[in-house]
Structure formats: structure tokens, C-alpha cells
């Protein structure tokens, strides 16, 4: 580790460290504009100039020359050096406060300001602007650019429905362009022209169409890129930034909810190096609008006569209690509870407690609709990736195997994090039945045949055993297993339609790797449900590879929703003979639906007799209810979610509840009290304390502990003072902030445990044999339950289409864009008419449709379909 001296302080830093980074721990502030720690240095703005010297070496002895005081003689470099591009080396001496450095900073700022409009009073960035901050600290007090020809340029260029560009304010730092290129992998911005005319532009059509575009607003060091969602709605110093967690997917990105006058004005990322680093996807940034929708239910309602009529809480709760009380104790069996997995742990915990302890029913589920595909619970419980695993940090010695997943649209920020790990030296393997965005970053990528997932994994296991790389010390029945596994790698490869070499390489690489992680997504979970051999094979791969029970080893289930993991942990599953969701709808007599809308996806859904719906909106299900309880939006109360990496994260309350809406956990408690329970939770924190006591994996997970680093944001800059957190974050000055806590899996807490490996023969019937396989995909921005309330999201929702392989399209005589009909072999039979997209992301024999767009809701995943061209009658009409 090179030893460097920065402003007189000596520090050891790893080889390869840049001066700007080395200066952070010693507390020397080197101002930057173009440099961002997550991106490669560009050396553009020249703001970070510092004085650098190297010890003079005696060529004979190769030792530093010392002066009469025994101090090394320093050769100062004749020019100042950019701290953001200069790598430290042994003995280097850096000065950041000399008059020359101060003069250089002053000059650069003076230059920048010669073409800056200085419209801070009407600029969204004003108050959290690095240019303002640096100017205050290091800039000239006034300008010597007295000439009249100040730079003028376009003030409001709509780059996209989300982003407005002010060309005058742009300081040409290139961060936005480089973000899209290096981090998002969607190079939709570019610089054009040159000199003072250098400008940011987009080449896309539709313009700047990226799932991650909003991040460029945050990292733009000036107010050149502004959010059209937030523009002019508040000054940033009027906002209260509350720490929260995005509720839109299982990544659980940390956010700030910036509120003013009890409205969320904007959502910005909150740094958590173990979750989202400093990024968000556009969905997470925009989807908060639903919280303020005028369509929110704000009073309790009961069905009087035929209509739902507003009543008081007292009446509504009484109404329900009276209906339930007579059946209490006698038969809870006819009562069922269905809860959405977007709800907080505290809500889900009390919900199941109400059922199990008060109503005496195990009829509990959260798996319906989108979440019905959740699977692999046992794998997660036993072998979830070890505590301390940080997917964004994976590097040398780690092999990550991504199976049947498409994080680009389903866990977007996770995709960003996995994209970079090969650059850090990790081996990334991407396998799915179709091509996905992440595959372009993979060290090994392969497309297997949908339906042959079990063979694919068994091939990896076989390859591992053949190479003698398997470990049996924690396995029961390893020998029997390898004898029972009566398939060769070549046979598995033939079934999965991949090459035997691919299976061999992946299997051996994974097994031989020091650390191994398996991430499996929705498409793989679907396969697990269809054929138990898939989960058994994964189980064997994990146990025999020994990749579990410690950091950077184990599985991660890429569940669909923000708290799918928590729903499992809280026990929202039909244990001990309880009914699953699929039966509730026909067998239950009383149904309590919380934060879920089964009727939206299933038009045949009926009120089973008596139905309580607790929600934010008059959903399709609520419209059929007997009682509606208005629930608070997540921003109106606090709680915790558990993300896909089993990280439990705290979100604070940012808003006053709307109307009479109450937090879900509070409503459940009131009902329980009506039914005689002696519950006395004063807050969600109280509920969490009980969870921490009663659920072993959640031991010590109190709100207080989870709140560490999840605080309200320090206010904006103070004149001449230290930069505020938003500026520090925009500049990438915060280092290594992490919050939340991961729960430990069984294999971690029971180091000596052994696990059974059993061979399960793949069910050949499960493999698609003839016909075309329907792969269900997801669009990130959709017209889903919550997204519909964001106008900007709605402008960016793609049109539904069916992806067809070009060879199939040729065989079926279907041209790109032609309208085709897909007919499902399902019960009841269904058909869809959609334009064809012939773009090669699906292999022959597979067609793909996103099931969250207009007209494509609730497709039967994995169905066999028929595709036919639809006669276009329009031509005749014209």
C-alpha cells in the first residue's frame, strides 16, 4: 500500500487509489465537478487541480534523497495535476491548500461562470448546487468577465418527458453522458459540437428513453438537468427530506421523500452502498404520485343496502366485529386472509397474528396475481446469501449465477449493480430461456430451452461431480445422489438445448470458484412450481458446491414485490393445512383482503359471503366488499420492508395521513381489540419489538437499530459552511454509507448442520414439447395499480407487442410490426391481438409478451400458444 502525504497528513491507501479518494479520509477537501466515484475519471472540468510532488530518488542507491533535516527532497511537478486522474504512488506528497491551488480553483470557477446564467433564484438546483457551493468556498467574489457577450443558449430543451435540459446552465462535465454509458449501459446521451458550443443531446427515439434517466438529474452538478416532475414545485431548502424505502420492487432502494405542504414533491436516492448505492430507477422516482391521488379512499365504508356508504371508524369496526364474533372460536376455518406483499412487516405480522391467534385460522396467503410465482422459500431460509454479502461489491473469487431472471425490468437497480461486477473481477453467468440485458455483461451467457430448467441445473451438478469438484462434508446422501443422477452432461445439454461445453464450463467454474452466489428470478420460480425437480437440482447444486453459509455464498430469490421476502418471514403462508389463495376464493366464507386486488386480475372473482377490504383505493375487489377500511400510504406511516437480499430496512413517516386513513397495523389492532384481544401497540416500532422477540431470524431488528444511517437529511448548504448532504451525495463525497440489517440463514446460524441431497427425476411432461412457449416478461413502466397515477410514467409506457424470433417470423410469414393473434391453450381459451416485434431477443419456438401493459394483463405464464398473422383490413378501408 503506497504511503502518501496529503496536506502534511500521512496515509496508507491501496495501490491504484486516486488522489481525490485518498484525500477524503484525511479530511482534505478537493472540489470536483466531472469526477464521480462510481464512474471512470474524465479529467474534464479541471476543478480538482492540486500540487503534486515525488521524492527525489538517488539513481545509484534507488533511495530517496534527504535534505539536511533528514526529510526527503521533493521534486514538485511543474504543473498542477488533476486529483481525479492522478493515481497515488509511494512517497507522493500532495498539497491542496497552497496559493497556487487556490488560484487554480478560483480560475476554473471564474471560467465556468463566464458562460453561466447565474439564475440561481429560479433554478431547481439552487440550494444544493455544487457550482454554488464551490463558488462560495473557492470562487472569485465577483466577475472580471465584464464584456457584454455573455453566453446564451436554450433554456428549456425537453430531453424526455421526465427531463428538461437548460443548455445555458450546463458546464459540460459529461457526467450525464458517462452515467448512461458506463452505469446504465443505455448510451442514449451524447455530446455534440465543440468548444463553447459543446452540448448534451439525445440520439434516441423516443428521446432519452432509459429506465435510469432520472439519476442524471441527481448527479448533474448544476441545474442543467431538472426533473419535469419536480420543476418549480418547491425550493429544495423548503423540502423536508424523510428517509424511506422504495416500495416498487424487491430491491428496496433507499430514498428520501422530499415533502412540502404535506405533499411528496420529489423522490431522490439515499445512499446505501449495500442496496442502491446512489441510484434509483425511474419507476421508483416517479411512482409516488398515487399517494396524493384524489381517488384515495379516505373514510371507512360499509355496505348498507346495496351501496358502500361512508361511516365512522367505530361503526365500521363494530360492523365487522359483530359479524365475526358469533363464529369466533368455533370455526375460523371458513375465514381467510389475503395480503399484498407491498405491505410492511408490521402489518403482515399483525395480520397473521389476528388470524392465527384471534380467529384461529391458518388460511393466510400473499401469493396471488404477480406474487403467485414466488418459490424457493426453503432454499432462501437455509442457504440465503450469507450476511455481509453485497452484490454491488462482488469481485475476484466470486461466481454469480443468474437463472431465469430479467433484472433490467424487474429489479432494475440490481441490474445496474450486477452490470459492473465483471469489471471488478467477478464471474457473472447469465442463463435464461431468452436474451436479457444483463447477458451483455456476462462472462458466460446461455439460452436454455424453457421447460428444461431441471436438466440445465442437473447438467451443472453432473459437470461439477464429473470434475471431482463437489464437496460432501455438509451433505447427507452425496454418494447416493451422484449414483442416482443417471444423466450425463451431454444428455442434460441435449434436453436443455445448450452445448455440453457450456454446461461443463459453467458447472466447473461455479464449483471451483472460491465463492458462489445463485440468483433466481421469476421465470425460474415458475419452473420450480411446475416441476419439483428444479428446486431439488438447485438444492443439490448449492449443497454439493458448498456455496452457502457464509458471506458471498448462497442464494438470492428475486421476488416480485418490495416485501415478498418479509411476507414469507412474517408467516403469510398457509401453514398447517391452511388454504392457499387459490382455494380461498372458492372455499372461504369470510375474506379479509389487505393491500391486494385479486379481482383486478381475475374477472371471475366473487365476494365469498362476507368480505373486508383494506386498501388505498376503491379497487375492483373493494367494489365487491362489504366493508372497506381506508389504509395509509407507506409514506404516511413508518415501518420496515425486507428486500430480496433479506435486508430489513426502515422507512419513516413523511406525510400526515389522508382523511381518516390509518396505518394497516393500527386498523388490524383496532379490530383485534374489538374482538377482545389485549393488544397495546402504540406504534409500528412496538410491533417490530415483538417481531424481534418472536421471530428468531429478526432478533434485535428493532426500529432503533434499523434507523442507523436512515435519518432525515441534513438541510441544504449553509453559506461558507460545510457542504450539505445533497451536495455531498451529488458529488459522490459520502463514503460507504450502509443501513438496514440482513437476517442470518439456517446454515449460518447452525454451522454444523448437514443437509439432505435427493435426486428428483425431471418430469419430462413439464418440458415444452410441441408448439410455441409463451414467455411472460415485464415492462418496467406500466399501467399498474400505482403507476397509473404518474402522468410522466404514463407517457413512457410502451405499447404492448409480441416478440418473435426472426426465423419464426419468416416461417410464419410475419413482418415486423404486423398485427398477429396469439391463441393460448388455456382454460378458458384466450386470445390476444398485438403487433409483432421481430427483434431476436427470444429464441425460435418462444414468443414473449409483457403482461403489464394495456390489454395483456394476467397472461398464463409458460402456456403453449399459437401465433397467426391477422388479416389487415385497414388497407382496404383506406
Amino acid at each position, binding site marked *: 500500500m503506497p504511503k502518501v502525504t496529503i496536506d502534511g497528513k500521512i496515509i496508507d491507501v491501496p495501490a491504484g487509489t486516486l488522489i481525490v479518494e485518498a484525500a477524503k479520509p484525511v479530511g482534505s477537501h478537493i472540489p470536483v465537478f466531472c469526477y464521480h466515484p462510481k464512474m471512470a*475519471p*474524465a*479529467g*474534464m*472540468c*479541471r*476543478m480538482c*487541480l492540486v500540487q503534486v510532488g515525488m521524492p527525489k530518488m538517488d539513481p545509484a542507491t534507488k533511495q530517496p534523497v534527504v535534505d539536511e533535516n533528514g526529510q526527503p527532497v521533493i521534486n514538485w511537478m*511543474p*504543473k*498542477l495535476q*488533476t486529483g481525479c*486522474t492522478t493515481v497515488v504512488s509511494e512517497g507522493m506528497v500532495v498539497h491542496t491548500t497552497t496559493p497556487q491551488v487556490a488560484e*487554480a480553483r478560483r*480560475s*476554473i470557477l*471564474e*471560467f*465556468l461562470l*463566464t*458562460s453561466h446564467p447565474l439564475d440561481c433564484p429560479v433554478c431547481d438546483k439552487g440550494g444544493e448546487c455544487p457550482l454554488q457551493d464551490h463558488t462560495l468556498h473557492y470562487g472569485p467574489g465577483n466577475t*472580471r*468577465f*465584464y*464584456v457584454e*457577450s455573455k*453566453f446564451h443558449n436554450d433554456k428549456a430543451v425537453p430531453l424526455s418527458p421526465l427531463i428538461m435540459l437548460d443548455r445555458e446552465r450546463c*458546464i*459540460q462535465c*459529461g457526467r450525464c453522458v458517462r452515467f448512461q454509458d458506463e452505469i446504465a449501459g443505455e448510451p442514449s446521451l*451524447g*455530446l*455534440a*459540437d*465543440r*468548444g*463553447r*458550443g*459543446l452540448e448534451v443531446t439525445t440520439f434516441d427515439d423516443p428521446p432519452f428513453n432509459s429506465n435510469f434517466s432520472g439519476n442524471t438529474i441527481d448527479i448533474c452538478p448544476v441545474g442543467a438537468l431538472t426533473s419535469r416532475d419536480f420543476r418549480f414545485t418547491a425550493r429544495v431548502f423548503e423540502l423536508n427530506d424523510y428517509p424511506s424505502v422504495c416500495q416498487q420492487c424487491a430491491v428496496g432502494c433507499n430514498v428520501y421523500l422530499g415533502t412540502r405542504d404535506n405533499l411528496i414533491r420529489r423522490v431522490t436516492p439515499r445512499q446505501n452502498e449495500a442496496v442502491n448505492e446512489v441510484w434509483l430507477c425511474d419507476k421508483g422516482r416517479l411512482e409516488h404520485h398515487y399517494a396524493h391521488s384524489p381517488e384515495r379512499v379516505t373514510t371507512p365504508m360499509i355496505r348498507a343496502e346495496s351501496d358502500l356508504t361512508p361511516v365512522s371508524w367505530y361503526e365500521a369496526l363494530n360492523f365487522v366485529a359483530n359479524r365475526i364474533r358469533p363464529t369466533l372460536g368455533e370455526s375460523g376455518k371458513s375465514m381467510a386472509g389475503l395480503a399484498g406483499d407491498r405491505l410492511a412487516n408490521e402489518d403482515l405480522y399483525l395480520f397473521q397474528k389476528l388470524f392465527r391467534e384471534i380467529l384461529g385460522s391458518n388460511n393466510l396467503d400473499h401469493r396471488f396475481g404477480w406474487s403467485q410465482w414466488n418459490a424457493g422459500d426453503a432454499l432462501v431460509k437455509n442457504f440465503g446469501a450469507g450476511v455481509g454479502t453485497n452484490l454491488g461489491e462482488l469481485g475476484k473469487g466470486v461466481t454469480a449465477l443468474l437463472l431465469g431472471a430479467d433484472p433490467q425490468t424487474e429489479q432494475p437497480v440490481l441490474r445496474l449493480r450486477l452490470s459492473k461486477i465483471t469489471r471488478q473481477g467477478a464471474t457473472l453467468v447469465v442463463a435464461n430461456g431468452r436474451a436479457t440485458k444483463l447477458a451483455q455483461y456476462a462472462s458466460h451467457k446461455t439460452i436454455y430451452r424453457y421447460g428444461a430448467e431441471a436438466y440445465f441445473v442437473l447438467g451443472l451438478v453432473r459437470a461439477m461431480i464429473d470434475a471431482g469438484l463437489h464437496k460432501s462434508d455438509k451433505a447427507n446422501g452425496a454418494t447416493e445422489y451422484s449414483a442416482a443422477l443417471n444423466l450425463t452432461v451431454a444428455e442434460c445439454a441435449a434436453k436443455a438445448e445448450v452445448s455440453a461445453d457450456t454446461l461443463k464450463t459453467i458447472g466447473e467454474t461455479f464449483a471451483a470458484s472460491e465463492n458462489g452466489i445463485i440468483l433466481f428470478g421469476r421465470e425460474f420460480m415458475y419452473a420450480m412450481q411446475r416441476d419439483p425437480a428444479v428446486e431439488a437440482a438447485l438444492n443439490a447444486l448449492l449443497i454439493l458446491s458448498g456455496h452457502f453459509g457464509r458471506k458471498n455464498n448462497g442464494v438470492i430469490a428475486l421476488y416480485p414485490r418490495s416485501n415478498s421476502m418479509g411476507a414469507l418471514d412474517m408467516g403469510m403462508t398457509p401453514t398447517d393445512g391452511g388454504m392457499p389463495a387459490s382455494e380461498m376464493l372458492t372455499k372461504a366464507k369470510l375474506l379479509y383482503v389487505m393491500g391486494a386486488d385479486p379481482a383486478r386480475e381475475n374477472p371471475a372473482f366473487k365476494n365469498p359471503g362476507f368480505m373486508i377490504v383494506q386498501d388505498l383505493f376503491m379497487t375492483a375487489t373493494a367494489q365487491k366488499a362489504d366493508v372497506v377500511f381506508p389504509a395509509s400510504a407507506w409514506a404516511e406511516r413508518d415501518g420496515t420492508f425486507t428486500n430480496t437480499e433479506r435486508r430489513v430496512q426502515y422507512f419513516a413517516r413523511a406525510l400526515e395521513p389522508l382523511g381518516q386513513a390509518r396505518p394497516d397495523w393500527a386498523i388490524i389492532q383496532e379490530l383485534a381489540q374489538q374482538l377482545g384481544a389485549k393488544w397495546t401497540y402504540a406504534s409500528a416500532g412496538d410491533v417490530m419489538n415483538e417481531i424481534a422477540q418472536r421471530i428468531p431470524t429478526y432478533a434485535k431488528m428493532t426500529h432503533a437499530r434499523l434507523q442507523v444511517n436512515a435519518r432525515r437529511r441534513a438541510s441544504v448548504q449553509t453559506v461558507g459552511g460545510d457542504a450539505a448532504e445533497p451536495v455531498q451525495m451529488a458529488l459522490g463525497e459520502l463514503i460507504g454509507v450502509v443501513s438496514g440489517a440482513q437476517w442470518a440463514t439456517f446454515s449460518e446460524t447452525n454451522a454444523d448442520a448437514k443437509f439432505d441431497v435427493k435426486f428428483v427425476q425431471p418430469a419430462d411432461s413439464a418440458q415444452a414439447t410441441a408448439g410455441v412457449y409463451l414467455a411472460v416478461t415485464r415492462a418496467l413502466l406500466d399501467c399498474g395499480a400505482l403507476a397509473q397515477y404518474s402522468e410522466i410514467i404514463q407517457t413512457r409506457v410502451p405499447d404492448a407487442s409480441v416478440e418473435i424470433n426472426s426465423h419464426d417470423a419468416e416461417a410464419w410469414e410475419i413482418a415486423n410490426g404486423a398485427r398477429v393473434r396469439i391463441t393460448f391453450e388455456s382454460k378458458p381459451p384466450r386470445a390476444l391481438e398485438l403487433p409483432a416485434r421481430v427483434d431476436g431477443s427470444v429464441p425460435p419456438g418462444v414468443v414473449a409478451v409483457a403482461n403489464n401493459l394495456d390489454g395483456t394483463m394476467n397472461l398464463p405464464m409458460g402456456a403453449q400458444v399459437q401465433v397467426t398473422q391477422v388479416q389487415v383490413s385497414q388497407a382496404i378501408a383506406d
Partner: protein
Amino acid sequence: MIWEPIILRNKNIPEIADIDVYERNGGFTALKKALKEMTPEQVTDAVKASGLKGRGGAGFPTGLKWSFLPKGVFPRYLAVNADESEPGTFKDREIMEKNPHQFIEGVILSAYAIQCAHAFIYIRGEYPGAANILEQAIAAAKQRGYLGAQILGSAYDLEITVHRGAGAYICGEETAMLESLEGKLGMPRVKPPFPAVVGLYGKPTVINNVETLTNVPPIIDKGADWYKTIGTEKSSGPKVFCVSGHVNRPGNYEAPLGSITLRDLIFGAEYAQGVRGEKNVKGILTAGASAPMLTAQHLDTKLDYEAVAAAGSILGSASIIVLDEDTDIPWATQKMSRFFMHESCGKCTPCREGTYWMFVLMERINTGKGTARDMEMLPIVANQILGRTLCPLGEFATSPVLGTLKWFKHEYEAKVSADGNRETEK
């Protein structure tokens, strides 16, 4: 003594652009010798020993540059800099148009030395004629087995691609040239890494000027020892001087480095033959717009890298622009300021903003709007740029201003007034 050109051989053999004529006059003997008798290292060593320095401006020792390529990393590339965009520079054009085969032979020899299988010639878009001639020369060389697969029966393969630029001075800067070759916006890269390690398409790359490589065939043919006898101890070999401006006979003149003075070049009968209208010399630019201006008092400066540096300027690409006694120096400087403002790529702040600011000040002074304050600001702005830019262009941009202020301050003073309201003369 009249020097018999070894670079501009067309001066003596006008038909040398014909490949037969070139062959009859010793063409490709160096290549044959190298491929048959020399290893790539020996070719590099010969060039090292010759003392040849880059003719593109920076004067970096060529053989040394070649030896920086990391061992065992392939593919590697040779990118030839034919962007020739410095004002007053037109030597590469004459070489490519009139003596193309020697240049191409030089490219092949150099590519062989660095073991590159694909060389690129990045030629400025304003040279369509030269680009066509090069493509024909490449085709002819290929036809005769000097290029393509298994050159002259050896195991060595080489392709050469001619790439036309799109009119940006900055694309002559070597890393911007690589960006442009890759199809990106022509902007310099941060160094390190140097192109020798991470160059074109991320691979080790050597970049050399056209004239530099045209020196290689004679070095290989006649040997480094012979070559070292030409020129001075530190600046060996011949150099092509581009003379333009107020002279009677502008053009390219070849002479050994250090063998003649500025006076010889401007007034000599075999060179530019004096200033038009028998006028006196007022200013001399030695490296186009990029170097500080010299004056009549420097006429006896010898033309080699060291002597010109000692006089306070740089020899660079040796583009000598002569300005006579009637030249309005601030006016001429404004032209150069405009050039740099226009050519700044905009990647780094001081150059992007500073070149504009300097130009605005120059314009005020030249249009009678200038004040003493503007004159004060000029060197301030220039010095705020100096030493802080990403590439040398920003530094070049300060040369005309600082150079002319040093010698011709009175001309500026005569143009400014207390209130910025001086009648303009023109």
C-alpha cells in the same frame, strides 16, 4: 551547398509518385532488406540509433516510442497522423501527393517493427486528392506484394486503411485522433494510460506523423550511422520546412536540422527568396499558430529543436509563417485567437471558456472598443489557461497572445483608449 532531398525526393525526381520510378530509384529496397535480413527489434533499434525524432510537433524520439509497447499484447496498431491542421503546415501533403510510395514504405517498415497487422492513416478531410493518391499507392503496393498477406514471401501480413477526418484541428492530437478513428467525438483522452499501452480500441498503439515515417526507409536502407551524419548531434536528420506568409517563394524546403538559420530559409535563393516588396521582417511564427512569435532579431536562430527553444519558441512541425513590417500584429493575433476558439474541443474548462474570453478581448481591442483593462486581462486570462488544460491545444492558444504581447505591446497600446471608444482605422 544544396541539400539533395531524401524526404521530398520529388524535388529532384518529379515522377517518383509513379511506383515504377520509385522502384527504379531504390524504392522498397529498405523493405526487402528489413523483411529478409532484420527482425522487428532490429528495425526498431536502427530507428532508435538514428536519433529520429517525431516530426508532428512534439519531437519525441521515434524508436523509443515504439519500444514502449507492452510485450506480448496483440493486436497492436499503427495510426499515422496525416491530419496536418496546424496553420501554415503543408509538408505532409506534398509528401503524400508527390512522394507517396516512400511514405507507404515507411508505414510498412514501421508496422513491421511494432508487429502490427493493421495500420490506419488518419488524413484530414480537406485532403481528398492526397487520400485518393494514398489509396492508389496502397493498391499498387499490394499488387506488387509489398502489402497484404505474406509480404514479399515472409510471414508478415499488413493491411492499411485510409480514414478521412471531418475537419477538426483537435483530431491531430493523437488521442483525439484515436477517438475519432473509433467513430467517437474527437476529444483528447486523459493520459496516462498512454496510447502505447491503451490506444486504438483499447490496444497498444503507436502514433506517428507522415514525415516521421517517411524518414524510416532511408534509415533502414542506408543505416543509422549514415543518418546520424545528417543534422546536429541532438537533432538528427533532414526536416521539411513549410514557409508561408509574406515571402516571395512560399513552399516546402528540406534541409538538415540545424544546417540553416531562419534568415537562410527566408532570404536564401534556394529557399523562400526574401520578403515580398523588399520589406523587413516583423514577426516569425515557427510552428504555425501554436508557438510564441519571434521577431527580426531572431533571424539568425539555427533551425533545430534546441536552438529555436533557446530563442523562446518551438520548432514543432516547422511551419514558418513570415509577417512583414506592415502587419498589424494584434489583428493577426485575433485571427489566431479565433482559430483556437473555433478549434477548442470544449472538453476542458480553461480552454473552452478561456479561448472564447481571449478572443472577445482581442476583438474589442481590434475594433477600437478596447481599454487598458482589456490589455491587463489578456495575459491574466492566458495565464489562467496555461498549465491547467487537458491537452496542449489550450496551451497553444495562449502562445499567440502571450508571444505578441511580449514583443509588440506597443501595438496593442496604440489600439486601446481610456473609454473604449477609439475610431477604428479599418
